[in-house]
């Protein structure tokens, strides 16, 4: 696929990517996914999103070619590729902060490298394609275990790992009340992961009934449709004996709904880096001394966040892009044990040729769409 401008994508024949660095690999994509954060690109919110670029940071495939210095992969290997591009040895990678790699993104120092996510994250083409260039092939990709379903594997490249990481950043302790804003894929995985960390109560908030229904069945969570309440913050206080939740997870990010002014100034007029409605609700819903985990993606511009309340309440705000590969050994255990069932939230499997309709459907939340997978034909 290629981006043609805000709200427009199409399938084009591009040159097959080539080895540009000795540690590159070329991977033939067998499954990809559209991430909720891809919609920020699709809607023209992320600066330096160039016409002609290919999106897609969630993909798995087969190694088709390797560079001269690649030692850990061979042609024909089935691999899952974390959405982070990382070198493994910079100051940040050496400390496990793979999502903050300093050696892969010349365009910005504040964010690492991400496949198919604008030049602000390095200018790499992504995996919603037949072939993709994978830099640092000895570092990022991992062989897909034989027992692991390919759809589960593609979901582990970002959404599952991000939801699980989000729950970790909440620093959940046994018996904590956790509120998750957003019942999209990351919110659903964050809610399910909160139980693994010993949450005593998990509440998921959204405005789409079909996603809340999935939160009840998939993540065993209580749910609230915020449109049914005049003031979701007051409702949250009432639900928690006026204490507030111990932990809040923002799994919405830049295009949050619920306040027209915030949404329009951010998502439509691009005057903010993101619409921080969910983040502000999190700040106001969590108890004093509580923790907020921010998993929702925001742009690099400023956003109108209620820092005064966060300061006065003594909150801990924790956030980062997920260092995906660090999560995988434990996540493999959880998937194998049946504690997490990633592909239960997949609602659509769409051929690459129809990706424009897939983007429109996912963006407009049509047809009960929660997670669309893309199936290349090559």
């Amino acid at each position: 696929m290629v981006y043609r401008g805000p709200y427009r994508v199409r399938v084009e024949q591009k040159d097959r990517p080539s080895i540009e660095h000795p540690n590159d690999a070329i991977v033939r994509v067998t499954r990809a996914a559209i991430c909720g954060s891809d919609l920020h690109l699709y809607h023209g919110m992320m600066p330096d999103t160039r016409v002609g670029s290919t999106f897609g940071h969630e993909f798995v495939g087969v190694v088709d070619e390797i560079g001269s210095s690649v030692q850990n992969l061979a042609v024909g290997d089935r691999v899952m590729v974390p959405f982070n591009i990382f070198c493994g040895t910079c100051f940040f990678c050496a400390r496990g902060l793979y999502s903050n790699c300093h050696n892969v993104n010349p365009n910005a120092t504040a964010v690492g490298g991400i496949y198919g996510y604008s030049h602000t994250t390095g200018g790499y083409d992504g995996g919603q394609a037949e072939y993709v260039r994978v830099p640092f092939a000895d570092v990022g990709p991992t062989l897909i275990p034989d027992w692991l379903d390919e759809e589960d594997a593609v979901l582990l490249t970002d959404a599952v790992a991000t939801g699980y990481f989000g729950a970790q950043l909440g620093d959940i302790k046994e018996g904590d009340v956790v509120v998750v804003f957003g019942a999209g894929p990351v919110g659903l995985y964050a809610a399910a992961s909160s139980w693994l960390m010993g949450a005593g109560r998990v509440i998921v908030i959204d405005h789409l009934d079909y996603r809340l229904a999935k939160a009840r069945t998939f993540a065993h969570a209580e749910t609230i449709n915020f449109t049914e309440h005049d003031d979701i913050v007051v409702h949250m206080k009432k639900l928690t004996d006026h204490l507030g939740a111990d932990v809040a997870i923002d799994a919405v990010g830049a295009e949050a709904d619920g306040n027209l002014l915030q949404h329009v100034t951010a998502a439509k007029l691009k005057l903010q880096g993101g619409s921080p409605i969910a983040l502000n609700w999190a700040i106001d819903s969590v108890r004093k001394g509580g923790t907020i985990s921010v998993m929702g993606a925001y742009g690099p511009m400023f956003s109108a966040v209620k820092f005064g309340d966060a300061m006065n309440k003594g909150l801990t705000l924790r956030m980062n892009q997920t260092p995906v590969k660090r999560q995988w050994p434990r996540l493999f255990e959880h998937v194998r044990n049946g504690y997490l069932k990633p592909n239960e939230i997949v609602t659509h499997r769409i051929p690459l040729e129809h990706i424009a309709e897939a983007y429109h459907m996912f963006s407009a939340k049509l047809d009960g769409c929660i997670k669309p997978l893309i199936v290349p034909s090559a």
Partner: protein
Amino acid sequence: MAYTPDKPKLAETSEQLRARIPGWGADLDPRDRPSVPREQFDPTFSGAHWEFPERQPELSPRERSIEHAFLTPVFGTSCPPRGLSGMIRRYSYAKYSEGRAAHWLLLLASDRVDAVESTLRSFVSRRPDNPVTETGVLAEGSRHGLRSRREGRRADKVHHPLDPIIVAAPWVLGAGLAYAVLRRVVGRARG
């Protein structure tokens, strides 16, 4: 309650939750979680066999943040800057750091210019832009657009009418501009 010392009691005990929810408490110990502690120094863990990676050849000038000391050893090569949008992008990278709003606003502006330039360029190519197929709007029919939007009390209903305006406005303005230019040219030709 918040007004007394004890935490409110939960509806279910840990034992009840463990019995009801598969895997409850599997990561109960906060110290035994994959990203705890956040920073764990181990430069060999990742599989890298270098201290500083070999450099990718810079085959054409590559724009970079002025907050970087040098061009990173590996970088993306998709869509090099071109046209007026490329000039704006290069200026933004050369002049402003990531800390300046001007940097990001110029990049956003260059994105809009890029979209216009690319669409105009497509009209002289073998594959002109097609707003119907590229917006995927046909999914409204095949994916139950109306029914999906009517279900429940969706908060996004209120701004749904803005999306077609955002998508269509450049096309309508472009068509109007083209019509005005054409009319003037024809008027002059007729004398």
